[in-house]
């Protein structure tokens, strides 16, 4: 067995233990803690401005009891959850497939990597504006292409269900590069000999995937999934320019509701309550999910 480290070594490690974690903690304490606390405190108050000064009135849980009766919040929660599940699943599958293929080919790697990253380089508002034009039933290029092959065009953003799917398509186009990038990085840091060993063993592509690649990639997959889920719950840019939450409440998403209530209607207390509830729901989802995968990883 190895000899225990010398005392000086241990002290040095202890000191560096703090130095290396301190910057991150500093950022969080100074910039993250204050707004979170502020949010929770606001959610228990009513805030009005009079004579140039703020007046905070404690209302306890009043906002939280109002939430279930708010039609936008109900629609927002339902839509956002469905949106997140559908969009993120599609993005994970497509992103993984693309990353897998790009990691296996030789010719055109750099080209494909660059191309597949393009959508996230473009600002969200531009994506929203351009896709809105493309979806235009009269002049949009999508319906024009449909017309070329003899199909009738659709009113992509005009009717409830279809509008919802159209927004998901834009999200997939926008965010699959995120998944692609992380999973590709994960794949490229796997030891090369594993793939060769699997091939020599005569494993089929599916077997290799299931027994070797995915288990080894699990940490990256989990992180990617978690962050993609969180970010999709915050979806805003696409909805803002494409549909504004309509038609009706078909594409109303939580972050949009929060934006509407918190900012446009200047109801900071109530808007904070919606944020806190959304946080809660999301945290629950993530914790459950992490719990499940941790068990999976340990049994491996």
């Amino acid at each position: 067995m190895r000899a225990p480290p010398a005392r000086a070594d241990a002290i040095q490690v202890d000191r560096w233990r703090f130095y290396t974690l301190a910057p991150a903690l500093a950022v969080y304490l100074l910039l993250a803690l204050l707004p979170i606390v502020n949010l929770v405190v606001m959610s228990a108050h009513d805030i009005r401005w009079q004579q140039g000064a703020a007046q905070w009135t404690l209302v306890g849980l009043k906002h939280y009891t109002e939430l279930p009766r708010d039609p936008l919040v109900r629609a927002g929660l339902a839509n956002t959850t469905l949106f997140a599940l559908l969009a993120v699943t599609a993005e994970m599958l497509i992103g993984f497939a693309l990353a897998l293929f790009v990691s296996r080919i030789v010719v055109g790697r750099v080209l494909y990597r660059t191309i597949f990253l393009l959508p996230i380089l473009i600002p969200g508002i531009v994506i929203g504006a351009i896709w809105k034009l493309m979806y235009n039933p009269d002049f949009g290029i999508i319906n024009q292409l449909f017309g070329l092959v003899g199909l009738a065009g659709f009113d992509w953003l005009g009717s409830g269900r279809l509008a919802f799917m159209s927004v998901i398509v834009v999200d997939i186009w926008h965010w699959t590069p995120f998944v692609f990038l992380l999973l590709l990085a994960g794949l490229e840091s796997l030891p090369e000999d594993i793939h060769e060993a699997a091939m020599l063993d005569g494993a089929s592509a599916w077997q290799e995937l299931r027994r070797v690649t995915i288990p080894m990639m699990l940490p990256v997959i989990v992180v990617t999934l978690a962050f993609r889920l969180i970010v999709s719950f915050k979806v805003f840019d696409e909805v803002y320019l494409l549909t504004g939450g309509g038609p009706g409440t078909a594409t109303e998403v939580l972050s949009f509701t929060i934006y509407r209530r918190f900012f446009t209607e200047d109801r900071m207390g109530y808007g904070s309550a919606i944020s806190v509830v959304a946080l809660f729901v999301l945290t629950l989802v993530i914790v459950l999910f992490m719990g499940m995968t941790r068990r999976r990883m340990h049994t491996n």
Partner: protein
Amino acid sequence: MIFNRGAFVHSLLRPFIALAALVVTTAMATWGGAAFAQAGAPWPKVSPITIVINQSPWFGGFSKVVEAYEKETGNKVTLDVNPFAGSGEKQRNSVRAKEGQFDILVMNSAWLAEFYHGGFLTPLNTIDASFRLDPQVMSYDDTGYWDATKKSNNAKTGVVYGVPINGNIQVLYYRSDLYEKAGLKVPQTWDELAANAKALNSPPNVYGMVQRGARSASDISYDWMPYLHSYNGAIFRDEKAGDFTVTINSPEARQALDMYVNLAKNSGPPNPGSYGQAQVIQALLTGKAAHATPVIAAWPQLDDATKSAVVGKVNVAVLPHGPGGRTTPTLGHFIGGIPNNIPKDRQVAALAFLRWFQSYDAQVKYAQTGQPPIRIDVYDAPFMKSPDYRWSRAILASLPNAKMMYTVPEGPQIASVLELRLNQAVLGEKTTADALNTAADEIHDIMQKAGYKTARLPALK
């Protein structure tokens, strides 16, 4: 005494030089002053100021006017330009801070009530007791005045807080070329408009009427207000007097909504619920709309060949009205106010700009950039008679009746309710009676929670 020529000349020269200097200086001052000032009033030198404003079609015109101010007076003005929603946000941050960043706030009617009720603005007379809003400046539903005790915009009982910057209201845009071809007359009532729209409706090339049926922070509710008001309906019974009985589900309101929904059904595009302001204007520009009612600020695009397919083919008239009502466009205008939380010298400088801005010459310059001036007398200027300004008659006739959509800080919440329910009505998800009843319930709820004196009408059947 010996005549000392040197001393004599010296003693004569000195006063002479002094006199000459005095003459030259006065001449320079007068000439310089005349060169910088308008005919008449000399403009004082004040501190530099920052105006916070949003990017918009009329911004170009406004910035030209600001340049003229800088040249004429030698005072410096910085423009902080933002996207529309962003401007409101930044203004809000600035007035709530200890010391404000911005000296003149260009506030849209959407957040004007919030700023008045919040007490963030300073009465202009506390900066200069002699300041008056020029009588030629239009009223804009008294939004330049505020009565802090009664909490309402009232020119009689309130004091002046702001100068209008842009008088944006809705008008009726129509295809004059199609009118000529079909021999139609400009409609006075909504029924006449409906008939004209039906006549010109030939989908999918041209839709008789394109409306802002979409749901957003302010689309369909803003679009529908002129119908409501011109049918003698209203959201509240008497806002100015403080009676907030909810009357959104009155029989008159139902008539107004029926007219709106039927127009969409009979002469509108297949998906009226997805047309926001930009889409309506696009429909006009691409020639797809025979009628529409966007604000006058959209006008400059129509005669621009890089943006419009219908240059010279569109004209503007006052909005129609309901039976027994008057044309009542909704105000979407901007007021320039001065916040409390900036130092006195910047307040003085800001007021100097506003005072200059409301002058006749400044407004002529403004109108010449294609924007509706805030003074009535400018409308009689000769250049306003040319076809480039064919919108001016309609604006002048419309402005006296223009109304604010809401004057309470709860306004955006009310708008939110109306946006959803009206959108559902136009999509056919709810009947008009149902939509209005639900809206009435929700608005009543909001007003009650906020502590206003309110009541409800019986439900529509």
